Each structure stands twice: as structure tokens, then as C-alpha cells.
């Protein structure tokens, strides 16, 4: 898997708004100054940088005011991966979602390193923080592949607490979760993350989307609560399960859309090319 980390080099993210900040980076800054992208023209007296004097504008100015060209500065952006490792992530049918989450975290670390952005990570399991990596420019990708990830706990209390501690600017939060949440829980979490730009990555297991319609008895255990339920599985039951799940997923998508988010859905396996394409189109 280590050898395939380079696939994630293709991931790139660009915010629609300029970022404040003086530290050099790869993202469009809000401060005007030296750079490659032309921004606007300003009076020389307000921005005394005669090296970028705009001769054409200065000559044609009817009042004879000298103007200089201003450029967009480049700045860096902290990429913060918030990983929801509640116990539901450990439920496996057609996808090892814990493994997917670990690989995604490592992939984003790899991409952040490539984009020269600082990378930080918080792994939350219910109301506990399993792992907290402060911002760093070191390459963590290989280490993260071996990150011990034991999904546990329930709810999003630790994620919401983490959101309150995050800076509000110059940060992109990548929320990796299976979104086994109720609409209210998701709305509360997204409200806590606002106004930061959030990239939501939805880890889905197609096995749970449509249970087997064969007649039988299935004992179900909720990994978060430990609650058990024995059900008689029938085609009608399976159809009802699938329908309810579709309804819940639609409700979650609606909540995300209300917060201006369009989740990147990863079902069973990661297709890096598709992920990169989705990332470039994500509304950030």
C-alpha cells in the first residue's frame, strides 16, 4: 500500500476565496503584493512599489496619478483531516471502512505534503479523541498507514469539541465519516464546523445498503450501542430496509446541501482518479 501512496499526489484542492496569511504557499492569498496572478491596479502613493509601475495606466490617467500593478500573493492552507472513528466504522460487509479511512488519511497527508500545505489529523471515536496530530509539514503518509485505528464509541461529541478548537481561517477540514448519523447529529456537527470550508468524504458500504432478501433469521448487533435485535428476513423486509436507508441518505445529503456541501461518496473501494476529479469539483 505504501507504494501506491503516490497515486494520491493527484489530489488538489482550491478554495474559491482568497486566504489571508503571509506564509508562502500554493493557494491564492487575499493580500496584494508580488506574485504571478494579476489582481488589480492601485495608486503608487497607496502602494509604493515602483517596480510594478503600470506605464500605460499612468500615462493615460487624466489626473496624472501614477498607478502600480498589484498581484495576488500565494499562501498556504492547513489541511485538517477529521476522522470519525465511531464504532460503526468497524462494521464490515463489502467494505473495510476503517482501512479506507486510514488510507484516505494517509493519502491526504501525502497530497498535503505535495502541495506544501501543513497537515493535521484528529481521530475521534465517539466522545474520545483517539489520535491528535498537530499541524506539520513533515511527511506523515507512511506512518498513517500503520495508524492503529480501533473504532469505538458513539456520537460526534469529540468531533464537535475538535471543531470548536480549530482556527476559523486558512484551514480546510476534510471530514471523513461513514455518516451513520441521524440528520440532527449531522446538522449539529456541520454547525460546529462552520464557517470553515469542509470537504466531506462519505465512506459507504454497499453491503449495508441492501440486505439479502432471502428468508431467514438474522441477529443484528449495533456496534455503537451493543443493542441486539433478531429479525425475520424476508424480501419485503429487505425492500423496506433499503427504502428506509435511501430515505435517510437523502435526508443526510439534504442537510449537507443546506450547509453548502456536496459529499464525495466512496463506496467499498477508493478510485483515486475519481476522487481527484470529485475533489477538483467540490464546492470549497
Amino acid at each position, binding site marked *: *500500500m505504501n507504494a*501506491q501512496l503516490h*497515486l494520491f499526489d493527484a489530489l488538489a484542492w482550491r478554495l474559491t476565496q482568497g486566504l489571508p496569511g503571509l506564509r508562502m504557499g500554493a493557494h491564492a492569498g487575499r493580500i496584494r503584493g508580488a506574485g504571478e496572478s494579476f489582481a488589480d491596479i492601485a495608486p503608487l502613493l497607496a502602494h509604493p512599489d515602483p517596480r510594478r509601475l503600470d506605464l500605460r495606466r499612468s500615462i493615460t490617467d487624466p489626473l496624472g496619478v501614477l498607478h502600480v500593478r498589484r498581484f495576488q500573493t500565494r499562501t498556504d492552507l492547513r489541511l485538517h483531516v477529521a476522522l470519525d472513528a465511531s*464504532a*460503526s466504522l*468497524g*462494521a*464490515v*460487509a*463489502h*467494505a*473495510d471502512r476503517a*482501512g*479506507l479511512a486510514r*488510507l484516505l488519511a494517509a493519502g491526504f497527508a501525502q497530497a498535503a505534503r505535495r502541495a506544501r500545505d501543513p497537515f493535521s489529523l484528529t481521530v475521534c471515536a465517539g466522545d474520545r479523541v483517539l489520535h491528535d496530530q498537530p499541524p506539520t509539514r513533515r511527511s506523515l503518509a507512511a506512518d498513517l498507514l500503520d495508524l492503529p485505528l480501533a473504532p469505538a464509541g458513539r456520537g460526534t461529541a469529540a468531533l464537535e469539541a475538535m471543531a470548536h478548537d480549530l482556527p476559523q481561517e486558512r484551514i480546510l477540514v476534510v471530514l471523513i465519516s*461513514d455518516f*451513520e*448519523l*441521524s440528520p440532527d447529529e449531522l446538522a449539529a456537527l456541520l454547525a460546529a464546523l462552520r464557517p470553515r470550508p469542509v470537504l466531506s468524504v462519505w465512506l459507504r*458500504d454497499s*453491503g*449495508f445498503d441492501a*440486505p*439479502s432478501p*432471502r*428468508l*431467514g*433469521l*438474522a*441477529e*443484528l*448487533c*449495533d*456496534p*455503537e*450501542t451493543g*443493542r*441486539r*435485535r*433478531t*429479525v*425475520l*428476513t424476508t424480501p419485503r*423486509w429487505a425492500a*423496506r*430496509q433499503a427504502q*428506509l*436507508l435511501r430515505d*435517510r441518505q437523502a435526508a443526510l445529503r439534504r442537510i449537507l446541501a443546506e450547509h453548502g456541501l456536496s459529499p464525495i461518496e466512496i463506496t*467499498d*473501494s*477508493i*478510485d*483515486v482518479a475519481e476522487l481527484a476529479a470529485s475533489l477538483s469539483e467540490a464546492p470549497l
Partner: protein
Amino acid sequence: MIGFAWPPALFALPLLLLPLVIRWLRASAVPRLDLRAVEGRAVGPLLVALAMLAPAALILGLAQPYLRGGSTAYRGIGTNLVLLIDRSSSMDDTFAGRSPQGGDESKAAAARRILLDFIARRPDDRIGIAAFSTAPMLVLPMTESRTAIAAAVAALAEPGLSQTDVGRGLTLAMGMAHEASASDSRAVVLVSDGAAVIAPEVQTALRNLAARRQVNIYWLYLRTKGAKGIFEVPEPGQADTPHLRPERHLHIFLQSLGLPYHAFEADSPGAVEDAVTEIGRMESRPILTRRPVPRRDLAWACHLLASLCCAALAAARWLERRYAPRRPAPLLVPA
């Protein structure tokens, strides 16, 4: 009331709590059950109940439970009946006065056969049996047990003795009838083919008994061919003493007791049968009697229940499915 033949098995009963800890089916992890469709909620408790019921029934079966026997009181139609049967040797002769030969039936055998039929037709009677010959014999105290009564009647097939002490036999039978019940009707059925002189002191005792409590007396006189009947009045000039006509004088004595008394004279098995039917008709009154309830073994029911529970649990295992098969895909889509 339930009893157990091997109670130590009941110490294993706490084992039936195991299904509360160990589940019968393997669980598959499915996130957020609370957000999924709630259906078939009763299946789980039903399986747990079956898993608890199976060992419980098995352990109870090993303890061999049974319902204690006894008897229950109920109101039927019948009477307290004492059969007083003559066991004199003359009863072993036929109605013709000969020893039974070939297909002939003796008076005793005919009486036994007809009485057995009579007893079988009357399930509510409480019956006691006494016999008399040289001395009165208590054959069977008053009882509701039909098998005991039938066995006692059948036991009268032994050859009879010589004498006929009917007086003391009647004393014994009336005493038994008195002790049988305080409120219900009582009857003594005397079956004999002859009589004897009743001593004065026995007559006094019988009159005292008759004065104490009412007993219906029936005399089924099995008249041998050629013998004088009990209703025959001797012609004038003929001797009429108890020694010469004991049957007639016993009839007169019984009439004089002041009790309801009926005499039947039968000179053939058919006549005996008619007489017995008539006695049965007259002695059909409400009676508070007891019905025996035998001890009933319940282990088979426990084992059957345990088998059914085990079969249901086996069927549940056969029907066991995972919510979704566990086949995790590779993390990365193969290039």
C-alpha cells in the same frame, strides 16, 4: 399437586438462564439499528424464550414430575350398596338343583355375572361386599374402586361352605351400610338361595340396627327348582315354622323390620337379571361420592416440550442469515 420422582435434577434449573448471556444466533454488526426499520421485534424474545424453555423442560423431565393421585368428590346417581352374597355350597348348584355340567351355569356363577354387569353399569355406586356361610365374612369394605369391587365379586367363585348364617350376615351388611354414609341412601342386596333360622338375639340386633338408620333391603332369592317360594303361604294344616320354611319366615321377619323392603324371587338367570335391573332402577338417587384420580406422569410432556423447543431452535439455526455477507472489497480500485 405436582411431585417429583427425582428432585435433585432441579438443582440444574439455573442453567436455563444461560440463553440470557449466550445468544443462539451469531450476530452481524449493523450500524445504527435505531435508525433502521423496526420489524420482527418479537422474534428475539421468542428465541430466548425457546432457548430457556428447552433446558427447563429437559431438567423438569429428568426430575420426573407427576400429578399426585387421589380422589375428587362429585355428585352422581347411585347408592351406598352392600352386596350380601350367600356362599353356601348350594349356590354352586344350578337353578335345577344339580351340579353344573357342560354349559350349565351355577346360581353363584349367574349371580356373579349379573352382578358384575350391574356394577359396571353403575359407576357412581359406593359398594361393599359381604358374604355369609357358616359365618359372615367382610369381603370388601365400602369402596368406589371398580377394579376392587370386580375383583371381590370374581373372588366369590371359590367353592362355598355348608351352612347359611343369614342373620349374622345381615347384621354385618347393615352395619356396613350404616357406616357408609350419614346422608345418602343406603341399600343391602341379599343374594341367596336359601335361608336359616335367625336366632332371637340376632333378630334383636337387627331390629336395633333397623331402628337406628334407614336401609333399603332387597332380597334376591335364587329359587331352586322344587323349592318352596318365599311368597307361598302354606295351606291350612301344613306346618309353618321357621325350621321348615326358613325363607318364608326370613321374608316375614324382614317385612317386620319397618324398612323399605323388596323381595325378588328368581328361578332362572333371566329372572335374576330382571330383578337386578329393577333394584338398579329403584336405587338411583343422588349420591355424593368420590372418583379416584390416578397419579399422572408428566415427564413425557416435559420431554415432548423440550424436543419441540430444540426442533424450533434447530430450525432457527438452519434459517440463520447474515445481514450482509462479509466480503470486503480491496481498498483501492484495481487499475
